[in-house]
């Protein structure tokens, strides 16, 4: 008994060796990172146009004058994102389920869902935003139905639902056939089998993949600026013209990164955790 408690208290040969290895690779990583950073800091200012770039992109006074306005405009991005997300969740789920239909009577639904995903995954997002964002209000609809907010958001919802639906469908297909067999053998209907057995597992499996799409959506909201809404990207453009300076774009980029970097890290963490569970 005393022997075992001794070995747990003191690290074994392997642990000592691995700790030394870890320390060595940390040292190498730190040194090389420092060297690269130092090179950038020393070399970039030596470029002939550095002074001009610094003045038009990293201009302190312009930054502090425009940043609060950019933050304000960003609230509109968040609002568009927030009302699009639940609609994407619903539409993509419906499309994914339609694509899984096996009953011949419902074949038109399956065909329609397949066409839908093919079309909207095959088009550039910006093109869909132009076509719907300018096209539909062009019909001369009365207010508020000619609002670019509505039709621009709809374009985003249609495109992203197609991607999310495909991710969900891959999740549905990843659930082993034996799970369906087990549910059906108990006398459950195929609808209940999907709802209670297949979908809950499938959706859980695709959370990390969908997190990446959510991050992409958050950035693509900026594309709506092309059809009207004065969100952060357009606001930055306004400031650019006003001050004849590009610093507002750098400010806008910073605001996006503050949101997207933590979200990306979180998605990676989820993906990593899932891989560990599966092993």
């Amino acid at each position: 008994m005393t022997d075992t408690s001794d070995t747990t208290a003191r690290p074994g040969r392997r642990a000592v060796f691995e700790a030394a290895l870890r320390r060595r690779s940390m040292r190498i990583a730190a040194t090389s990172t420092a060297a690269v950073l130092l090179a950038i800091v020393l070399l970039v200012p030596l470029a002939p146009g550095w002074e001009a770039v610094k003045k038009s992109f990293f201009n302190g006074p312009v930054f502090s004058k425009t940043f609060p306005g950019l933050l304000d405009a960003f609230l509109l991005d968040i609002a568009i994102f927030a009302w699009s997300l639940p609609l994407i969740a619903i539409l993509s789920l419906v499309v994914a389920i339609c694509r899984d239909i096996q009953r011949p009577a419902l074949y038109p639904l399956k065909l329609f869902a397949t066409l839908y995903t093919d079309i909207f995954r095959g088009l550039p997002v910006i093109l869909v935003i132009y076509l719907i964002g300018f096209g539909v209000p062009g019909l001369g609809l009365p207010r508020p139905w000619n609002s670019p907010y509505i039709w621009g958001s709809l374009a985003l919802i249609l495109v992203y639902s197609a991607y999310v639906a495909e991710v969900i469908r891959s999740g549905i297909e990843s659930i082993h056939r034996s799970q369906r067999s087990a549910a059906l053998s108990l006398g459950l209907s195929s609808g209940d089998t999907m709802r209670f057995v297949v979908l809950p597992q499938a959706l859980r499996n695709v959370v990390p993949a969908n997190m990446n799409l959510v991050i992409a959506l958050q950035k693509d909201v900026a594309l709506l600026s092309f059809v009207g809404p004065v969100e952060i990207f357009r606001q930055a453009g306004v400031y650019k013209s006003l001050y004849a300076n590009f610093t507002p774009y750098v400010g806008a980029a910073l605001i996006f990164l503050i949101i997207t970097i933590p979200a990306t890290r979180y998605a990676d963490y989820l993906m990593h955790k899932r891989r560990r569970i599966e092993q």
Partner: protein
Amino acid sequence: MRTMLRLAGVQKSFGTHHVLRGIDLDVDAGEMVCLIGASGSGKSTLLRAINLLDPIDDGEIVFDGVDIAEPGLDPQPIRQRIGLVFQSFNLFPHMSAEANVMLAPGRVKGLRKAQLKAPVTELFQRFGLGDRMGHYPDQLSGGQQQRVAIIRALAMQPEILLFDEITSALDPELVAEVLDVLRRLREEGMTMILATHEMGFARELADKVCFLDGGRIIEAGPPAQIFDNPQEQRTRQFLSQLL
């Protein structure tokens, strides 16, 4: 004895692979029938066919006087009366053991949780899992998972239970606890068909043993006859390979 299940000329192919080539079998109420034979002899396919998971190509499956192999028949109400337990347990990993068991009675028979609580708890206790109801499948041993799978099938109160090599995926030391469950069900008079490699168990408890080879029942009879005095060359060969 009342004949509960009668198979006549059952045929099944997967593509060009002819898996069942004319199976005839009678199962009486309260009887325990064991299917033995090498892997690929058609045992699993036969059980899945009876449960209507793999519809047969030709022949009859008469269950309680009705031909359930009739093409176009709604399989759902029939599956509720015929339980199937799988080799790989197939518990739903996102549900607790209790939720696994309650799902089908709740959805299919429309019973509420409160109504199910008492009978389901009693089932768990009867098979020694009273303290495991809240556990998820990955928190249970293989033997415990398979017992939960049996409880899940029993909760639908089936008239006949099919077992597809339910101990084959288990570590040797966990086989006994699952076989004990079968022994209990046998005593309670449950009608059962087992595909199994547990020859000792088949000899001890089966009323009838069928030896399958190449999609046919080569030889059928009481265990004493099949194991001690097999008439067919192929049966003798199969059994001698096991020793």
